[in-house]
């Protein structure tokens, strides 16, 4: 018995492209595509015409030319005789440096502030509220300039470090805070330092192996082994032994003040105040946002969870570590990563304090000296795009991993 009759077959009519839902989608997409291609063609044509009229070409050759300008803070060797490409690379590394430092510090600050904001201590929780609100509601640019101004005013000039009874002294005799920058000791790799490195890598591996072994043992027998202390011992003891045996191959180059001529420090590494200001401002600003995320994440774990853990006899520390944190982290981490992304993009405000990030070298001085704004801005945009795609790629992977665990 076949009741369902075939729908009447009719010839295809053009009107169906508009009114038949089966085809309308295709029509819309084709139209959209055509419009998009037309728009791009329009823009590209204008570009070509304009470039021609201005007598310019599209050429990245300028990157090989001598840059001619100096950069205060570099991670790789650079002089004004190097090329614009190297200056751009210095800028890229500087951006990544401040972004990396900022992310770590912002996380620490944010977690601290987020937890303390939930504290029962009235003063502390109020103070954290003030911190969070102050930083969330005032533009970052303003904070960067303010921190920079505070740094230049609150720290002593290098001359203060001079003489027998100097007005200022170095922290632990190692680090000098001045209004130019913070001078920190640098590591000097002496004879046999590579052995030391090998030992360090080996002990890290050993610690990891011990951790895995302890976990497997606990799962099998239920007996916990001391992970923290053994790992620490594994890390410190072999390193210290080799260090002594090899006769201290690793030394610190401590910055010392030059007593004659213009006051400056010799030796060590100078971390410019522009970097410090940008770093602190970015960390404090992003930290305020992270604090809110952390607070929200902890509050999102229902009270029943901790009560159940207590009922099972878990101590508060373990409750936090085994029950609350894993659940809170699932809420915290995705917005946290997007805060990292924001921080990286915000580091482009370095221009306000003259820190030589990629926006200041490639998108600033190089662009201005060579007049290649199209090429420079294109490269600049591409760099930021790649970084943010990598970060959001990481976020997607994480999201997929926690999504799998959901039951």
């Amino acid at each position, binding site marked *: 018995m076949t009741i369902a009759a075939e729908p009447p077959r009719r010839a295809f009519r053009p009107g169906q492209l*508009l*009114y038949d839902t089966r085809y309308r*989608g295709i029509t*819309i*997409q084709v139209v*959209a*595509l055509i419009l*998009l291609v037309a728009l791009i063609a329009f*823009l590209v044509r*204008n*570009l070509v*015409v*304009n*470039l021609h*009229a201005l007598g310019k070409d599209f050429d990245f050759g300028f990157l090989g030319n001598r840059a001619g300008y100096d950069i205060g803070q570099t991670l790789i060797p650079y002089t004004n005789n190097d090329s614009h490409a190297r200056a751009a690379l210095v800028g890229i590394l500087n951006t990544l440096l401040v972004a990396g430092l900022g992310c770590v510090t912002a996380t620490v600050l944010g977690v601290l502030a987020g937890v*303390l904001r939930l*504290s*029962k*201590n*009235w*003063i*502390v929780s109020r*103070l954290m509220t003030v911190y969070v*609100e*102050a930083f*969330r*509601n*005032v*533009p*970052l*640019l*303003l904070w960067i*300039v*303010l921190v920079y*101004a505070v740094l230049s005013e609150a720290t002593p000039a290098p001359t203060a470090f001079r003489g027998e009874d100097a007005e200022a002294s170095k922290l632990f005799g190692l680090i000098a805070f001045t209004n130019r920058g913070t001078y920190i000791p640098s590591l000097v790799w002496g004879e046999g330092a590579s052995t030391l490195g090998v030992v360090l890598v080996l002990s890290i591996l050993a610690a990891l192996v011990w951790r895995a072994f302890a976990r497997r043992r606990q799962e099998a027998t239920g007996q916990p082994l001391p992970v923290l202390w053994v790992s620490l011992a594994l890390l410190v003891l072999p390193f210290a032994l080799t260090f002594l045996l090899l006769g201290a191959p690793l030394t610190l180059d401590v910055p010392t003040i030059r007593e004659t001529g213009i006051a400056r420090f010799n030796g060590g590494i100078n971390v410019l105040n522009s970097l410090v200001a940008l770093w602190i401002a970015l960390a404090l600003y992003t930290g305020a946002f992270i604090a809110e995320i952390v607070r929200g994440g902890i509050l999102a774990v229902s009270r029943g969870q901790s009560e159940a853990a207590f009922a099972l006899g878990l101590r508060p520390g373990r409750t936090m570590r085994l029950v609350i944190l894993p659940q809170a982290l699932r809420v915290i981490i995705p917005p946290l990563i997007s805060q990292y992304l924001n921080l990286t*993009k*915000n580091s*482009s*405000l370095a*221009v*306000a304090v003259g820190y030589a990030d990629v*926006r200041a070298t490639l*998108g600033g001085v190089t662009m201005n000296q060579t007049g290649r*704004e*199209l090429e420079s*801005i294109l490269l*600049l*945009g591409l760099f*930021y*795009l790649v*970084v*943010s*795609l990598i970060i*959001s790629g990481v976020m997607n992977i994480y999201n997929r991993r926690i999504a799998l665990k959901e039951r």
Partner: protein
Amino acid sequence: MSDLDAQTIAYARDTMLPPAPPPRREAGAVRWVRENLFSGPLNIILTLLALWLLWAALRDVLPWAFRGIWRADSVSECRTIRNELYGEGVSAACWGVIRSRWQQLVFGFYPSSELWRPPLALIVFLLAILPVLFANLPRRLLWLAPAAPFAIVWLLWGGPIWGPVAAALGFVLAWVVWKALASRGLLVAFLGALVVSVLYWAFLARPLAAALTSILPLGLTPVRSADFGGFTLSIVIGLSGISLSLPLGVLLALARRSEMFIISKIAVIYIEVIRGVPLIVWLLVAQVLLNYFLPRGTNFDILLRVIIMVTLFAAAYIAEVIRGGLAALPRGQYEAADALGLGYWQAMQLIVLPQALKISIPGIVNSFIGLFKDTTLVSIISLFDPMRMSSTIRATTEWGGIYWELYIFVAAVFFVFCFAMSRYSIWLEQRLERSHR
């Protein structure tokens, strides 16, 4: 009481004791302090640390601020007054700079006689969106909203009133055509309205405005975009950026969730590219590169270019907020719309978007706070926002070398604006949460 009792119990209370106050250390301020501030070693340390921090921060700042000198017209005058009052070398704020230059910080170079216009424009804007922000106001107020943009543009930039009126007529015309053709299908009506209004704007609007102006020259003093500055500029860029990006953001969010492959991929690429690159680079593009991509000879002012760029930028963020709102709607809503036999646009217009937008308002307000703060970036491309204005004031001979006072003033104003908006957004979120239960 029996004898037995009398013999076995040595003492029995037969009246209630009057209630006694709790021990002093368990009551009032002392108890509060003990429980909240000094309940354990960690807490004591934290409290002391916090107190020290407060003291360290305020020790120098408060006297400096309160010694502040208001009646001065230059830095050197400030210094003279300070030396007279407190002696040399004492730190004292010079608030005189705010008193003498507040007008520039707030309005930029807006003509002094016309200063009532920007605040009035802001009030018009607030009145127009009030029914959206507070749901218990009468819905009828919404009718004001379509007229508001034209009124605001006219108030801010001035010129004859007929320009905005003629432009607004185009929309009225489009609406009339839409209504007339609606029975013939959405597409026909849409195309008809589009063609008629575009033709009107291209050929009729300008002569019409000119004719009306010559008949009845009614208007305000024109103000050039270059005269906009200070917080007026920030608010103009922020508010126009957010309002203009809203429709674009809705379209992008719908496109991103669309089942049509190409459409959704275009939306994804747009959103990711815009969000992946910092605003400051986009502003550079607006200032430096936009002219390369437009037909030769096109040139419009930098404020308009910045607004366009900020709109395109904010649209990507708004799209993500609204996408969140769309995703938060229960599937049942979509299915119910399908079951009713509604078409895509009908379902969106009648069922999905009203609910999704309502959920998204806190997110939109937060985006706006972000955008409003980001308007300070235009100082880097030499627009006279509060930051750039501070630099300009600092560069003059009278006020050279002053900066804390300016920064603090700018920060305080930003704080008031943003804090109020974030409170509103929190209030709204809580209300939404309640209404959902």
